């Protein structure tokens, strides 16, 4: 009978990969954003607006994460920026290894800002850091009034929150102001903005807030 001490993290691999991604992005002078949110919350719409509004000032690249399809990547390709699609298969979130493979297929020397669109999911992506600089979460009024209350782990760790589909708040009987209060309780430092992913309303305010990063 013998005791063998191991004292090793079972989560080490993922953490190290994320660190390596961050190192690579820093070396290339790229600021990277992980954009998370539920299925259909408006992640791609927000990214499309951000790209439209920023691409004249900055060189932008994108990694689109999805299970097996390419709808999101194609929507951003319409903006004529380099996009790589990452497929997770049946996995419900991007992981740093997959992201690394994707970003190595981008022209990194020619990119200032990288948007990574995560798989639609408010739970798992929060537990799997990709090695980015900032995290944005998109929630929408059509998800009901409890999204922030129900997912504190996600919302308390992100840098920016966008509440999408604000034009539908009355129809949905959801208060954007209440959602802002819910966020303040767990993450008072994160700016939170109401946006309309179709018209682009509210996106300028988000960009203004992000500007100190850019």
């Amino acid at each position, binding site marked *: *009978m*013998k*005791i*063998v*001490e*191991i*004292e*090793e*993290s*079972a*989560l*080490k*691999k993922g953490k190290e990969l994320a660190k390596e991604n961050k190192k690579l992005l820093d070396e290339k002078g790229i600021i990277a954003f992980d954009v998370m949110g539920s299925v259909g919350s408006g992640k791609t719409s927000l990214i499309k607006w951000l790209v439209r509004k920023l691409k004249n000032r900055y060189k932008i690249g994108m990694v689109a994460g999805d299970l097996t399809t390419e709808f999101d990547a194609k929507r951003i390709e319409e903006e004529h920026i380099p996009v790589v699609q990452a497929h997770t298969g049946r996995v419900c979130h991007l992981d740093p290894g997959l992201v690394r493979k994707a970003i190595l297929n981008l022209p990194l020397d020619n990119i200032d800002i990288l948007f990574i669109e995560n798989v639609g999911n408010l*739970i*798992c992506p*929060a*537990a*799997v850091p990709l090695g980015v600089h900032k995290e944005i979460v998109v929630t929408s009024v059509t998800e009901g009034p409890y999204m922030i*209350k*129900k997912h*504190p*782990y996600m919302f*308390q*760790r992100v840098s920016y929150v966008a509440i999408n589909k604000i034009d539908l708040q009355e129809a949905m009987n959801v208060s954007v102001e209440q959602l802002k209060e819910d966020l303040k*309780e*767990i*993450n*008072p*430092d994160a700016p939170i903005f109401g946006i309309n992913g179709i018209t682009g309303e509210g996106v300028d305010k988000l960009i203004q807030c992000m500007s100190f990063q850019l």
Partner: protein
Amino acid sequence: MHEFSTVKNIVEKVTEVAEKEGAKEITRLEIELGELTLLEEEQIRFWLEMMLSQTELGKSTEVVLNRISGVIQCNICGYKGGLETTGMDHYFPILKCPKCESHDLKVIEGDDCIIKSLEIED
């Protein structure tokens, strides 16, 4: 949630270590599970026992799971200690200083899953 892939990492590591030690059997495995990971204890136990039972050395391993509470240090008031859940009716602790309510914290303990040790028959 990611119990399966975490357990896969654990089983790979412990079988590698046990084989290196020339073990005939892994009699006991000790794991520390931090409350601030999103890993659910019963699922970790389930997958561990299942995956170990499918290895040569792990057919009758006793799995010991120790739960580690979250410990934070507040960068504003210096408080060092545990966290509180809010009255929001869920079980995950909110990362907020219980003393001064600042969110400017450093996590000292409880955000990892550590493979502590093996007991082997050699």
